[in-house]
């Protein structure tokens, strides 16, 4: 259903890389990096893309290089193993200008949006095993898309970047949108930052994302036939199983899910509303026409020496407005929102610990009513990095909330993230 998730064999990519390394292109000396990311998770958790048990995270292969003195190019391919299938997904394939005058730069292709603080960062640089709940709900964990970005860095001593992006917006489309705009998302952001001295650095940011296809339409009476069928099913579920997570889990097995979708043909069914699209396609499950975000980050390293010790504090608040045309929702309810506060302390060259608390509150829309969904999540993390290239992380997650599937008191995740090849630059 999401045609981005093209199932291909990993072989063609490997062949392509082999070709690159043996061809004698002049001055083509790109950076290659391979990220291996795997985990064991004791329970499935709410709003999560990963299942219980062993699994792979973002196994990614990337190639980047300046193209010439004007352009830089990067390709990141992500491998997902799922139901004994392997999907190759292009997460990034972009070019960026290097030499436009006056602090301007343009990026085009597929890339991570600069909305918010975490979104533009690669997941393997994260300090926790998954993105905060509000990111998982509103951005599909991390929002990347096809589009273009123009940004301008002010010539000030204070870092001050302003930018605008336009994207296809397919991942942020509300369900059952008929005739969507082909340029669906416009994002405007500004980031301001600086150093108090060598030890303390800060950054704040403001974001506004306009999603032309973000408002869920009302159900359409013309399609009563299919509608009724699902309504019936839905009612049954309401009466007997509404709070039983196990049932929902069954409901969302792919096969059944696909069948339902075919049946309802894009109309308003209970199941597509709960849409767990393909697990790794990162489609946002809560959308709205307007998405606002604020972010703040502060980092401290004694004597500025990040190698031995450093502390970082970050927080973001996101709010989606104009989420539906449905008149049964009061205007004060017409929003999803959430936030997180995270603190990570690297107390020795090889050890770091962190705590994060986050919340998400959203509305799940049914045919003529809605459910309030909420999630509160507390996470504790301890990680050990043998070298720059290898990290093993143990995380405890505690979830509370209502209306969502798989809310679990205690989830233990053991994860490794290893990078082979060029080391990634240290983004603030």
């Amino acid at each position: 259903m999401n045609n981005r998730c093209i199932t291909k064999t990993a072989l063609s990519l490997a062949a392509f890389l082999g070709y690159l390394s043996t061809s004698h292109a002049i001055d083509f000396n790109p950076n290659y990096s391979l990220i291996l990311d795997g985990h064991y998770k004791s329970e499935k958790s709410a709003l999560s893309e990963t299942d219980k048990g062993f699994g792979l995270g973002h196994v990614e292969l990337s190639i980047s290089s300046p193209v010439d003195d004007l352009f830089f190019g990067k390709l990141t391919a992500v491998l997902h193993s799922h139901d004994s299938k392997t999907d190759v997904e292009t997460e990034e394939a972009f070019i960026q200008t290097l030499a436009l005058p006056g602090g301007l730069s343009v990026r085009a292709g597929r890339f991570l949006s600069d909305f918010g603080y975490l979104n533009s960062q690669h997941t393997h640089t994260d300090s926790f095993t998954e993105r905060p709940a509000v990111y998982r709900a509103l951005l599909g964990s991390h929002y990347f898309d096809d589009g273009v970005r123009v940004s301008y860095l002010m010539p000030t001593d204070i870092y001050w970047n302003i930018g605008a992006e336009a994207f296809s917006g397919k991942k942020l489309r509300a369900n059952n949108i008929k005739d969507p705009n082909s340029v669906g998302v416009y994002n405007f952001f500004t980031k301001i930052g600086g150093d108090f001295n060598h030890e303390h650095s800060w950054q704040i940011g403001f974001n506004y994302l306009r999603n032309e296809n973000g408002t869920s339409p009302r159900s359409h009476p013309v399609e009563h036939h299919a509608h009724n069928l699902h309504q019936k099913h839905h009612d049954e579920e309401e009466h007997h199983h509404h709070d039983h997570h196990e049932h929902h889990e069954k409901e969302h097995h792919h096969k059944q899910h696909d069948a339902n979708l075919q049946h309802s043909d894009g109309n308003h069914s209970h199941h597509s509303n709960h849409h767990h699209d393909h697990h790794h396609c990162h489609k946002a499950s809560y959308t709205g026409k307007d998405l606002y975000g604020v972010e703040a980050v502060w980092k401290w390293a004694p004597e500025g020496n990040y190698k031995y010790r450093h502390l970082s504090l970050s927080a973001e608040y996101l709010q989606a407005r104009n989420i539906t045309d449905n008149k049964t929702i009061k205007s004060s309810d017409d929003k999803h929102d959430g936030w997180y506060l995270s603190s990570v302390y690297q107390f020795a060259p090889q050890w770091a610990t962190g705590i994060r608390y986050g919340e998400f509150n959203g509305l799940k829309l049914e045919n003529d009513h809605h459910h309030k969904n909420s999630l509160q999540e507390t996470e504790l993390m301890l990680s050990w990095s043998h070298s720059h290239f290898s990290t093993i992380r143990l995380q405890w997650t505690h979830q509370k909330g209502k209306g969502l599937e798989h809310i679990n008191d205690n989830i233990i995740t053991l994860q490794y993230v290893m990078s082979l090849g060029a080391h990634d630059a240290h983004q603030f």
Partner: protein
Amino acid sequence: MMRTSFNPLINPLINNEGISGLLFALGIALGITPALFFIPEATALNILTCEPEWKALAEQIAPHSKIYSATSALQDPHHIEARPGLIAKMRNADLAICSGADLEAGWLPLLQMKSANARIQNGKDGMFYAAEQIDTIGKLENVNPTMGDVHPEGNPHFHLDPYRLMTVANALAERMAKIDPNHGESYRENIKQFDEQWQKNIRKWEQEAKPLKGMQVVAYHTSFEYLFQWLGISMVGDLEPKPGLPPSGKHLSRLLKLAKNTRVDAVVYASYQDKSGAEWLSKQIGVPAIKLPMSVNDNNKSQALTSLYDDLIGKLLKATKSNG
């Protein structure tokens, strides 16, 4: 007169740069237009250096420039974040001076890209890599990840070899003259003076450091390799089990065993390196632990590089005296 009176106001905002039409339009939009009418003329270069030794060198050659060092002597230049403050500094730089040889691989490329400054991209005259001016030692043909944090392009800490430093200094002066021809004469004049003074200093240091010849030390891998080679000091043990990895207990006891069979005169570590392993080992062996400055610090402006070398040699000499 206008310029002097407005400089304090304008400089924090605008860094001697021509304003494009777009910025002008943005300026109007943001209501800061009044500030933009008083743009100071470009006087000298706006320079960002990756390490403080290059800042000290640039100050010798271009004393009237605006120079900012991204790191201090207390920071390990391998582990720096591409902070917003550094991106802003890079945005306005006419010239960036970095060691190269992959020392700044973890952050410089990001600064170059995020700064959106065409002048300091690789291959442009505004990006000066010191390592490209000299021959590094310890180049590796085949590097594999099990070797740790190694530099295939050779040891990047060559600023502690006075001869290589001189070569870099001369190349830097030429580069400055190329991108700022109006002040070319002054750069050439300054480097000539510095060169003469430096040659004299080298002779003085080599005289002073004679007692250090044959000294045997345990140190962090490549940090002082150039210095040791120059002064005839040999490194008999490495505090890091592998480059980039902190000294483990097991590794330290191996070094202790080594010290039973091999003479060790001192344990040496750099200003930004962890001292605990080094101090433990020095106590066990019964030799001094010497903390050496990796680079210049902010205290000593005018003759920063000279006093760095004085300091290095002085501290090593002091250790040999207390030993003997």
